[in-house]
């Protein structure tokens, strides 16, 4: 490939441009009116104003993006993550227009985007899935009957959902009755599809996911796992690799199950198989993400690989290396720095009056000092990725790093990291997905966020 268009913005666009520059591939950036001053726009070979600020009028304008790509003679389109990255229709239209979609095929995206369909596929492939309904539940009566079999607590989820949206935990029949219509309506509003299903809630679970990669020659490899259990509002805040306190034998079984999942759909390009792991190390398939993940740098840091380069190579027909050549070294932790209130997690848009990172970390950011963090898009300012020879070293480097960060102009969760990184719960490595809200509750009186 000689030239690609990046159908995304900010940090991930900048990340893709960096690899393309190294490989001598030209890039076309698209941007809304609000994003014209962001670094990724000037760093790309070419830039196109695609529309006004709301994503539906700019970054989600499928036809316009494809038209611009054709006009500028690009060979491929990289969708980044979020936005159009898991939009099967977009992937299909890119291919029809004669360009390469840098991701899996539209069929795979479609199949794995439907959570009920993906559960069914995994059951057939022999991958363990969380107990739940095999079809969408059509009425409250049906949901209540199914819930009797599954048992409470359970999760009510949108089949087309993602990113923690359209999913609610129900502790009882009463909660299910109260939430049913609301989740259905939200599913319709967010995803245009009101199919919802029930899944057993696995208590004290860890969220562990495996990075996989497939090529067009039938090769499929895994790049080990990441623990993504530190979350707020069902969205990840800290990820690390390798997962602490995970027996090697369980790690191997997880990676094998991920390959089994990938093989079931002839997976190509970068993907992630998400699992939940219970306190007895029993694990269950949750979903497959058919794109590069936000947290891919932790895998890059421990494997020493460039996953964007791999994506471009696979999309171009290249072949993957053998599984036994992929090794890990040390420990990596990624922290997502958000423009938000560290206590309430409410957004805090504004101008980055000061942005001073200090030394000792890999910084993936879409912003520079003086830029505006607008209310139109995701609140993530940056990802901070810290690598150490082992977890202890990565943790101590993290503490030193956060003590030297200065961000003025917007509220951020840096103060939360400063305290949480040194907490007994996090340092022990023995934590489940509720760790952050539980720690905040416990330390409400003590901490000084």
């Amino acid at each position, binding site marked *: 490939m000689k030239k690609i268009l990046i159908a995304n913005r900010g940090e991930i666009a900048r990340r893709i441009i960096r690899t393309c520059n190294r490989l001598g591939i030209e890039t076309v950036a698209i941007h809304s009116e609000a994003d014209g001053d962001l670094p990724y726009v000037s760093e790309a070979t070419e830039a196109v104003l695609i529309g006004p600020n709301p994503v539906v009028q700019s970054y989600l304008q499928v036809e316009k993006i494809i038209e611009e790509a054709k006009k500028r003679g690009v060979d491929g389109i990289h969708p980044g993550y979020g936005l159009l990255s898991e939009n099967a229709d977009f992937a299909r239209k890119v291919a029809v227009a004669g360009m390469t979609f840098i991701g899996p095929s539209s069929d795979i995206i479609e199949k794995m985007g439907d959570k009920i369909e993906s559960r069914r596929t995994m059951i057939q492939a022999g991958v363990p899935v969380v107990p739940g309904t095999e079809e969408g539940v059509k009425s409250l009566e049906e949901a209540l009957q199914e819930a009797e079999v599954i048992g409470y607590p359970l999760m009510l989820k949108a089949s087309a959902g993602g990113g923690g949206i359209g999913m609610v935990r129900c502790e009882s029949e009463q909660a299910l009755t109260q939430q049913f219509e609301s989740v259905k309506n939200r599913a319709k509003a967010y995803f245009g599809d009101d199919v919802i299903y029930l899944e057993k809630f696995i208590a004290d679970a860890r969220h562990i996911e495996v990075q996989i990669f497939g090529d067009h020659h039938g090769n499929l490899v895994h790049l080990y796992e990441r623990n993504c259990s530190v979350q707020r509002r069902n969205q990840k805040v800290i990820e690390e690799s390798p997962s602490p306190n995970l027996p090697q034998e369980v790690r191997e079984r997880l990676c094998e199950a991920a390959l089994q999942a990938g093989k079931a759909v002839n997976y190509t390009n970068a993907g992630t198989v998400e699992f939940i792991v219970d306190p007895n190390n029993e694990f269950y398939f949750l979903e497959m993400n058919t794109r590069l993940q936000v947290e891919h740098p932790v895998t890059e840091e421990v494997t020493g690989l460039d996953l964007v380069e791999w994506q471009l190579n696979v999309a171009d027909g290249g072949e993957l290396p053998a599984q036994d050549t992929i090794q890990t070294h040390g420990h990596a932790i990624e922290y997502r720095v958000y423009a938000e209130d560290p206590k309430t997690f409410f957004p805090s848009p504004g101008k980055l009056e000061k942005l001073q990172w200090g030394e000792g970390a890999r910084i993936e950011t879409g912003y520079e000092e003086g830029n505006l963090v607008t*209310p139109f898009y995701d609140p993530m300012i940056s990802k901070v990725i810290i690598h150490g020879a082992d977890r202890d070293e990565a943790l101590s480097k993290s503490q030193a790093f956060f003590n030297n960060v200065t961000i003025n102009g917007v509220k951020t969760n840096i103060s939360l990291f400063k305290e949480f990184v040194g907490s007994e719960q996090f340092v022990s490595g023995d934590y489940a997905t509720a760790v952050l809200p539980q720690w905040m509750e416990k330390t409400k009186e003590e901490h000084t966020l």
Partner: protein
Amino acid sequence: MKELKASMAGTVLNVLAAEGQAITPGQAVLTIESMKMEIPVEAEIGGTVEKIHVEIGGFVNEGDLLITVGE
């Protein structure tokens, strides 16, 4: 007469009260979407909604007047 102002910039997703309607303190009267998060805006005081100054889909900046509430 009291004024309910936006505490942050965002797009008005929903208007949950109507002019002439009685509202109570803590009642959600609007939802605003900011940075991909849906945030309910609650009435700080009770009273009657006199005027709604925004419409669904409109963009508001921090400090913009949202609703005027009378006795």
